[in-house]
């Protein structure tokens, strides 16, 4: 696991705070978190359980709300941003502000906990060579036969333009070696047979009680009424092959380094 967990993460966090070296009062003005002790992280975890877990999942890996373990947060690039989102909520979404009775310290402690279970991607060093990985992506890996990056490639797998924002190196490794584990519903497939015997197979873009919307291997869209079908089969595995044994260990490291480098730019303090 490349993610730091538990106590080690807290020590790293505390160390980082010390290196940044600002006093608590100044830090608050700067928008840095003045409450980052081990006790604060513990308190933050407890507060997260009380206030946040109902939507973000008890281990912060997401449920109705998004996962907060991805290292990067669309609405909160800095500690101050985190503080604001928790204090004020996000208008027009399901994210409410924290109870008004709560103090700033409470909010900062939740921020400290979330930081403790995440690591800034810039600070992660990986064994692979991203440039070599880029060549593998286009070459031996044949990734572009299904995936797209920045508008180039195909539509038969998730767009990877910013995959490094969404997936940790460990998750990317699992994606490559065990693609059938936890396949998102969008990437399930459906195989159908019409009453006249004609068959069709495609990615299950959407399904409801009465119909499917599919994308076939030639990137054609299909709207299929279940009433017209003789047979239908839902395939919950991935269309992606496993790279287990297909790439050497170092090639795999290179490919992961490349994929993890595919991130949006952001300004960090």
């Amino acid at each position, binding site marked *: 696991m490349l993610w730091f967990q538990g106590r080690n993460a807290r020590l790293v966090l505390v160390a980082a705070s010390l290196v940044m070296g600002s006093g608590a009062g100044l830090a608050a003005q700067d928008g840095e978190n003045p409450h980052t002790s081990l006790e604060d992280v513990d308190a933050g975890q*407890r507060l997260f*359980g009380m206030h946040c877990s109902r939507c973000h*999942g*008890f281990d912060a890996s997401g449920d109705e709300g998004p996962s907060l373990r991805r290292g990067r947060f669309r609405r909160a690039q800095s500690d101050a941003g985190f503080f604001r989102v928790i204090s004020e909520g996000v208008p027009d979404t399901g994210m409410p502000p924290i*109870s008004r*009775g709560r103090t700033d310290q409470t909010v900062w402690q939740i921020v400290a906990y979330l930081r403790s279970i995440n690591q800034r991607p810039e600070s992660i060093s990986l064994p692979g060579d991203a440039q070599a990985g880029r060549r593998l992506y286009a070459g031996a890996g044949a990734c572009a036969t299904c995936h797209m990056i920045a508008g180039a490639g195909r539509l038969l797998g998730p767009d990877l333009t910013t995959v490094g924002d969404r997936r940790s190196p460990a998750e990317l490794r699992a994606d490559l070696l065990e693609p059938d584990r936890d396949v998102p*519903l969008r990437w399930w497939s459906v195989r159908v047979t019409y009453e006249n015997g004609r068959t069709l197979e495609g990615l299950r873009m959407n*399904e*409801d009680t*009465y119909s499917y919307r599919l994308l076939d291997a030639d990137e054609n869209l299909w709207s299929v009424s279940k009433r017209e079908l003789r047979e239908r089969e839902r395939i919950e595995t991935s269309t992606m092959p496993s790279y287990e044994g297909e790439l050497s260990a170092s090639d795999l490291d290179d490919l992961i380094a490349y994929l993890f480098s595919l991130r949006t730019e952001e300004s960090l303090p």
Partner: protein
Amino acid sequence: MTRRALIALCALTLIVAAGRPFDAQQRDASGPAPVFTPVTYERLLNSADEPENWLMYSGNYSSQRYSGLDQVTVANADRLRLKWVYQLRDLDRAETTPLVIDGIMYVTESPSTVIALDAATGRVFWRYEHELPEDVNYCCGRNNRGVAVLGTRLFMSTLDAHLVSLDARTGTVLWDTEVADTRLGYSKTAAPLVVKDKIITGIAGGEFGIRGFLDAYDPATGDRIWRFYTIPGEGEPGNETWAGDSWQRGGSPTWMTGSYDPDADLVYWGTGNPGPDWNGEVRLGDNLYSDSVLALDPDTGELDWYFQFTPHDVHDWDATQIPVLADIEFDGRARKMMLWPNRNAFFYVLDRLSGEFLRGTQFGRQTWAERIGEDGRPVRVANMLPSVEGTLVSPPIEGAANWWSPSFSPSTGLLYVMAYDSEQIYFMREDEYVAGETYTGGGGRRPRPRDAYYSAVRAIVPQTGETAWDYPVQPRSSSGVLTTASDVLFGGTVDGYFFALDARTGDELWVMNVGGMIHAGPMTYSVEGQQRVTIAAGNTIFTFGLEE
């Protein structure tokens, strides 16, 4: 014909076709008559005699969500067409079941708004918005599910835990009573129930360490007549089922609407989860009267009997389902029953006069109990408690069934419920009670996406608990179910379909894509002899009727 004349003719045709703006206008021999007449208690008692109206949340005191209307049939349901649409202003999910009284429809809108519409056209008579304080504590959405009526007065629960009375003709506020302090986590979302000369109404807040209760109010003044605490106080029987002082913040809310049996003169109400939800270690014991049904004297609030479905619940399986009352044959004799597809995945049959447990059968996917014993208590499977590392259990937190109304059809003899066969990883954590804040002691995570599981309209044979038929719904449903005397069943899906089925067979009759999440119960009424079916979907009220 000149172009101008053609346009004029088209315009006239449109007005005639789309527009009789006073469609709800009642008529008698002397011409138009007023559209609203006061709703006496006798009218509520005999609601079956006026199926053109929908006079209370569940349609009648038996809460069968069954209508005597029979114009829409198995044979013609495919000719259902949209009649009118009303757009709610608030972009929250609508959970309302409207009332219809003599051509006037009363819809509630999130968070605590009532709108009176012409039931024939969907045009507005008046709108009332309850003003909320900035600091309102609620658990699960800014919802309101409907109003109650008595005489010329409406009664509405508000999100800040008030009970408000409005004049049904104008929306004028007659009184506004604070039921409980919202700053402590109390809120109100359910339609009240009028019984005789009292407004009976519950409370929400089971995730905030409240102490639940059921209240009765004077419709004329808003004064409280009685309060029954759903957690017995010190010295009262049942208090010993809570370790230490945990009873003081043990939840057991009453956040849905109850039922009433006028012959037995008992009001029935479901109670919610004990708190903290997922950490039972701090409240050892059965935790009475959480997850129970209470039978109370409506005049005094005294407890006649109770039945607890899930003693010492640690999975948040509220028993706030609508109590369905049905008179059916059971083991060879006619009995007055209560039918209850519970959130815990078991279907219960109780004698509603005595509270006697008669049968408990599994109706949804579950892994937590071997069976329901002869005494009505679950025989639990070991190691199904929430844990620090997480425990996989079926049903999930939202349950095999939840607050969305079931329906019982006296015509088919079947009980219909939206069933969800799913699972959850349950976590337990230590929690600290802070007044006005959530107090849950854990939480849940889904091992797979919520829509990857199985959901269906399930028709249950009350006598045996067997499934008569399933109508699978993909991805799932959190809609109420309505049945009619012509054996048509209505329901919906979370992805915006509204459908009609043959209530005897489950065969599909008609489907309409209304495009918004259906998270409310359907109801039916008629105006000028025409049957209408209404459903809230997304933030819109849709009304359908047969093609004319």
